[in-house]
């Protein structure tokens, strides 16, 4: 499971080419077809991505032509008068995902670090499995739990407590209903933690012991080693883990639909109901019978598609720069 065992077993194989590999030479003629098979599998994935993009543009053409750029900057959503735009859903998607990540990333890094460095091995493998099991729970279960268990707790305890301390801020205005952007963010955090923390754990175990030991050797404390060595060494991997989490948060549908409140409105307060792109799609797709309505929903999908693509591209570019500035440690 962990990187150590994998690397040691690999090393032992490299040293003595096993009989199986030598026998495999007889089948060297399979190399070329295998190459093509692997290539075509990879290319078909790229093809699929392009096909999805084309299909989204094609099916949202009516809405693209009708609303143009207005679609991105207005906040109206009126199926009766055929006026649609993306801003409210886009806002809810981004805000709920940011809340989710803001809560999940520090926690996940702490969990990952604890499992990789501090916990005694039996405990670490037990906790590691438990965290991964959390990731296997279907999102609808998170949604139901969010609505029936978390929302009342938020309404009765957590939100009033936040309001009693920070109630003067515009972020926490309104009656504490337990349903809204904030609760959606909390649910997203819970769903993202298993992914980010297990990737973070893998990354922390990959940091060579010699680097950490030299840190301790010059008298650094545990915290300083974490900050200066482990986190820096694993930066690109950690950013990758966060992006994985962000991708999951942006596209998460059912769990968010249950607790976000499903209201087409932008409000500064995180306790007010809102909606996300995917929750709007989940809610309205089945009964959208008019062409413009359907086309607008598909354009919402296109917006989400472009958003995810843009985030991935920008972060890849940024990562490359960081790596170069760090002298290409990895």
């Amino acid at each position, binding site marked *: 499971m962990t990187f150590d065992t994998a690397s040691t077993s690999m090393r032992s194989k490299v040293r003595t080419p096993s009989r199986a590999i030598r026998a495999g030479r007889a089948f060297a003629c399979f190399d070329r077809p295998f190459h093509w098979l692997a290539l075509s599998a990879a290319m078909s994935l790229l093809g699929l991505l392009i096909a999805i993009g084309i299909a989204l543009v094609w099916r949202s053409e009516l809405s693209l032509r009708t609303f143009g750029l207005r679609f991105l900057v207005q906040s*109206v*959503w*009126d*199926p*009766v*008068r055929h006026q649609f735009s993306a801003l409210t859903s886009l806002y809810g998607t981004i805000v709920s995902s940011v809340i989710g990540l803001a809560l999940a990333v520090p926690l996940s890094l702490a969990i990952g670090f604890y499992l990789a460095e501090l916990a005694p091995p039996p405990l670490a493998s037990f906790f590691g499995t438990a965290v991964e099991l959390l990731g296997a729970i279907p999102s609808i279960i998170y949604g139901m739990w969010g*609505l*029936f268990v978390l*929302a*009342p707790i938020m*309404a009765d305890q957590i939100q009033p407590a936040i309001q009693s301390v920070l109630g003067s801020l515009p972020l926490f205005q309104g*009656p504490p*209903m*337990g*349903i*809204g952007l904030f609760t959606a963010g909390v649910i997203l955090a819970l769903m993202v933690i298993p992914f980010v923390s297990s990737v973070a754990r893998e990354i922390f175990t990959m940091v060579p012991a010699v680097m950490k030991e030299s840190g301790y050797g010059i008298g650094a404390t545990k915290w300083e080693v974490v900050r200066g060595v482990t986190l820096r060494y694993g930066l690109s991997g950690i950013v990758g883990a966060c992006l994985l989490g962000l991708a999951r948060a942006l596209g998460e549908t059912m769990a968010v*639909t*249950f607790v976000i*409140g*499903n*209201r*087409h409105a932008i409000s500064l307060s995180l306790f007010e*109901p809102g*909606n996300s792109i995917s*929750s709007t799609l*989940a*809610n*309205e797709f*089945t*009964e*959208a*019978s008019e062409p413009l309505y359907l086309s607008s929903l598909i354009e919402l999908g296109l917006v989400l598609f472009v958003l995810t693509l843009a985030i991935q591209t920008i972060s890849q570019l940024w990562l490359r720069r960081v790596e170069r500035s760090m002298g290409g440690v990895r």
Partner: protein
Amino acid sequence: MKRPALGFLALLLLATSAVAQEFRGVVQGAGATFPYPLYARWAYEHAALSGVRVNYQAIGSGGGIAQIKAQTVDFGASDAPLTPEELREAGLVQFPMVIGGVVPVVNLPGIGPGELKLTPELLADIFLGKVQQWNDARIAEVNPGLKLPKQRITVVHRSDGSGTTWIFTHYLDQVSAAWHEKIGVGKAVEWPVGIGGKGNEGVSAYVQRVKGAIGYVEYAYALQNDLAYARLRNQDGYFVAPTIESFQAAATHAQWEKAPGFYMVLTNQPGEDSWPITGASFILVHKEQKDCPKARAMLEFFDWCYRHGEKVAVELHYVPMPLGVVDLVEAMWEREIRCGGKPVWERRR
């Protein structure tokens, strides 16, 4: 005693086998989710008797309309009727199959089912966000003697497009000029206030969770979840409670014979015992049928549902169509549904 019973059984077998011999396939239907439990149960019981299987997929009214237009199913089902023009364009006929009622439900401490009374104007103004507190003077005025809490009203509506919303907004549109001007009628509308729950179960859950909430759900959900429904003032000025009888009263008082293509919405119907937010769920079939035995078997199924499916319907909290309306529907079948130039349905002699 035994003999006549046997004879009756033989007759029944003969009657059903006449169909069974001709058609042994599956009738495909798709559409509204609201009547799905009932249609599935009807199909199951009818199949046991006749051997004709009816497969109904609850994909939503919009999907049902699209599928029947594309002829991928034998019948579609929709909670909102198509207009006569739409029917003519697509070569379809429609008829009401079952009645449902939409019920306003509230969560107010100390107020049980049927204790709160609302006028149509009040209901509209609450959902418009004009009345915001439960102890508002206008609510108190129609509820003398009821202790109304000082509590903010939280409106709960459907977040998904739905026939329930269509019926509810159709009602508000008729009773409130402000609603008509600002919001209008639709399966999804731009709600001025409130939070959205997905499905009847989502709205029920939100109403149960949030103190001071008011929402609207299908009758069956109000019963099953023990929600406190409100009584409404109907067109004749009486406060009525939502019951199977009051829904049927609305369907009976509606003037079906004057509605071309059965384009009839049962909201705000006359009659002193009519529940004002009633609606029918409709079946859509093509006028020109291609497979005659199948078309016949399909209409046999609907006829059986009308005439023998009442008990099951009531058990599941649906409201059967009054038989007077059924006669009108079957007369329409005889007039309009053709297969190979001949009528598919003949009146029973």
